[in-house]
């Protein structure tokens, strides 16, 4: 019987060998895939087993880490002034992942960035608890607060930039939500999450960066820039050859009319047309400049850029790449398929204010290690030369005129040079919903500059009163005042 017994021994050894090979397979070859599996809670448990770094606004942190010693998780993220800063911080949740800065700056905030390697190794050796690094934002809390207060009770967004650097001073979206309310895993957090994601008002939508609106008349700034650059218009105060109403080219008597009625848009000068926001003048200019040249102009101001990050990703604004002259005319007054994020329109104002140079918007000024040594610093970079200094100067003159004598008078700040442009964009099929009220502007005072774009989607104001002038401009004004101290 010994021969079969020996064979059985070999068989048993093979069984054990097979198990060993399998163990190496699972624990070696497959390990990284298993560790990265979305259902493997270990990653999240590890991430909340020590405090994350801070997101800093105006010198103080707007994030906290609560030592909760929960069943799975030791720490939970919490936010100071959560709803106001939510479009900047995003959320970091044990159950629902993360977004915005909490997501893109996670390597620093979690301390896992390779640049923190030596410090982490040192902490491990000295037995210190691991800690994440800090992210310092460019946000000015006063500007942010002004925009937040202004949007209360409305629905919309406001973005403020420093035109000379591209630093984002304010990033407001309303309605908003408190990221603290979805940071945990218990049923309260889950029901908050469910409520927020089901809310028709979309409080978790970052309207400043991730929503696009038809820019309406505010887009006339881009059309004006193209008209001046191409030489279609050389003197901003000379009459143009503009019928009222303007029959869209290539259509059977389809008319482009002016919102304000017939109050002098016929053959109006570029300056006057911008002040009165004449659709006819700019529609005709756009069609004459042509689709290709208009597209080129829009792209110089930042449209159609789907890869922009600040470092949070920004939804691309759109100017159609192929269309006929009638659509080009409509697109040139910010209708048809033209769409822009509030950040995009703030960039238009900023480029004009900064003598034609468009700086790349950025939200993070510094990344720091847990011990406050600076790991990286953002230096301002130029995104494009949107227009020439000469054209920019003319646009500035016209925008100042809008605020002084035109549709933007509600944005006047005594003693401060303010330029602006209102917009009231049609919304809905056959324009049956409340239009979007826009105001884009800039202000200069005492060496400081600020560019602001505000959009108000909807509000309880009766329809006739909705206009950039009444809804959006006062918000932009208060943000500019907050920054300039006037």
């Amino acid at each position, binding site marked *: *019987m*010994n*021969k*079969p*017994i*020996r*064979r*059985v*021994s070999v*068989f*048993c*050894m093979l*069984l*054990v060998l*097979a*198990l*060993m090979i*399998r*163990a*190496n397979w*699972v*624990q*070696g070859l*497959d*390990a*990284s*895939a*298993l*560790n990265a*599996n979305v*259902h*493997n*809670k*270990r990653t999240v*448990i590890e991430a909340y087993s020590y405090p994350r770094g801070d997101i800093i606004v105006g010198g103080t942190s707007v994030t906290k880490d609560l030592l909760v010693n929960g*069943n*799975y998780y030791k720490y939970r993220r919490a936010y100071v002034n959560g709803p106001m800063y939510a479009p900047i911080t995003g959320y970091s949740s044990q159950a629902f992942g993360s977004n915005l800065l909490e997501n893109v700056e996670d390597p620093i905030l979690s301390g896992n960035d390779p640049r923190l390697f030596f410090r982490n190794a040192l902490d491990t050796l000295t037995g210190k608890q691991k800690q994440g690094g800090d992210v310092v934002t460019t946000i000015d809390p006063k500007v942010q607060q002004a925009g937040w207060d202004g949007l209360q009770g409305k629905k919309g967004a406001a973005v403020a930039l420093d035109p000379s650097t591209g630093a984002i001073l304010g990033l407001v979206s309303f309605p908003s939500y408190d990221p603290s309310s979805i940071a945990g895993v218990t049923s309260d957090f889950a029901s908050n999450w469910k409520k927020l994601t089901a809310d028709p008002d979309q409080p978790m939508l970052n309207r400043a960066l991730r929503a696009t609106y038809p820019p309406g008349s505010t887009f006339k700034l881009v059309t004006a820039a193209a008209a001046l650059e191409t030489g279609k218009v050389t003197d901003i105060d000379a009459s143009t050859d503009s019928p009222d109403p303007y029959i869209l080219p290539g259509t059977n008597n389809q008319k482009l009319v002016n919102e304000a009625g017939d109050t002098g848009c016929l053959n109006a000068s570029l300056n006057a047309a911008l002040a009165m926001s004449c659709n006819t003048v700019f529609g005709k200019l756009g069609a004459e400049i042509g689709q290709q040249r208009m597209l080129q102009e829009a792209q110089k101001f930042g449209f159609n850029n789907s890869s922009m990050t600040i470092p949070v990703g920004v939804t691309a604004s759109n100017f159609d790449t192929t269309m006929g002259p009638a659509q080009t005319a409509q697109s040139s007054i910010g209708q048809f398929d033209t769409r822009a994020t509030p950040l995009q329109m703030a960039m238009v104002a900023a480029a004009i204010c900064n003598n034609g140079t468009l700086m790349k918007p950025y939200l993070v000024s510094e990344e720091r290690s847990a011990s406050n040594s600076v790991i990286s610093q953002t230096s301002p970079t130029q995104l494009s030369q949107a227009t020439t200094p000469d054209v920019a100067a003319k646009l500035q003159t016209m925008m100042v005129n809008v605020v002084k004598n035109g549709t933007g008078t509600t944005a006047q700040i005594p003693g401060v040079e303010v330029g602006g442009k209102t917009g009231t964009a049609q919304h809905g099929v056959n324009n049956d919903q409340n239009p979007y009220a826009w105001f884009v502007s800039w202000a200069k005072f005492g060496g400081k500059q600020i560019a602001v774009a505000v959009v108000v989607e909807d509000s309880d104001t009766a329809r006739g009163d909705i206009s950039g002038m009444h809804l959006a401009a006062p918000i932009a004004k208060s943000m500019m005042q907050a920054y300039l101290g006037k």
Partner: protein
Amino acid sequence: MTAVESRAVAWAPQGPAPVRRNTELSLLVFAALVPVLAYAETGLALDGRLPAGMLGYGLGLGSFVLLAHLCVRRFAPHADPLMLPIAALLNGLGLVFIWRLDKARELHPNYPAAQNQLLWSGLGIALFIVVMARLKDYRRLQRYTYLSGFAALLLLAAPAFFPVRAGDFGARIWIHLDGFSIQPGEFVKILLPVFFSGFLMVKRDALALASRRFLGLYLPRGRDLGPIVVVWALSLLILVFETDLGTSVLFFGIFVVMLYVATERTSWVLFGVLMAGLGFWAVAHTEGHVRGRIDEWLHPLAAAPGAGVGQIGQALFALGSGGALGTGLGQGHSWLIGFAAKSDFILGTIGEEIGVTGVIAVLLLYGLLAERGLRTALAARDPFGKLLAVGLSAAFALQVFIVVGGVTGLIPLTGMTLPFVAQGGSSVITNWALVAVLLKISDLARRPAPGEPLQPGTPP
């Protein structure tokens, strides 16, 4: 064990082996020390201090194994010196891992089990001592051939007549009495080899007769197919009525291995594998429970909506996160496995906290224990002893393969305990008894034959 050595033993089985009781004692010191140190490390990692029960635990485990050792010295002086230390080490490590999971407040529900398991281990060692002392000659077990067979049948059939509880996950492998439950499949692991040994002893010549040669194989006579068909049918009945894949495979596997050893006919193995394959295929196509297990095996990382991955997936996550060296005792998250983390899935905790290194060490211990048992079979001088030792060792090795293979996703999972390590009273008691019987066989096999000169240094 080298090949040369084993051959020498096989061809000259009468050659006396050294007694090696002192080797056993020194190995036992390690076997007790390693778990105590692991216990200390776990306590330090979880609470930042040495566990309060360390002295009691160390002394308790130490005195248990010392008692067992003294018993071996007294009743089986020539027995194999490795089996007892390996069993003690595995049992001790199992207690540490169960205690570690007792401390996981994240595990719900979490009924402290280490205390009970220590008690069961004590009872297991007590049974070990009883077997040592009372079973003067294992050959007397031959008298109970049919009684064992009957008892095994009864125990196997019993769970089918008891109501299934919600927590049993579809498998009828428990008998629930008030307060505690018994897994009768475990005891069968000893009873069946006893029955098969006795039965095959008598029938092996008839079963070895071949009717004709086919493709180089001696095919058994048609009328000799009776026993294997009966065992096959019974194992299928277990599978269908108790939905217990593990016991079914184990039951049939032991029989095929012992049949092969008894008759030395490879054709029986082929028959067995063919029949098992056919039966399994048929049941897998009709039984929802078995099919579910196979689906889970094929797609361990498939997630039910809102519920995450199943237990095998969680066990794989635990193993994967352990990597080469593990997170360290007490520092893993294997409690994510949830239900049965301390019993069927305890390998997940081992893999996570002491890594693939620890898993391989544990597998080597199992392999070594099985091989010592099979070596005992080689050395045994009587066919009953040979068959019994093969049956017990193969049962042990098969069980390890079934449970570890299931938890690591190598084969479909079947509810089985990791011998000596996993939580479970029936299991630990049976395994101690199994080792005791093997030691008894080994004692007789290594004992100098009558009239043979004693080796120098061997006590009279």
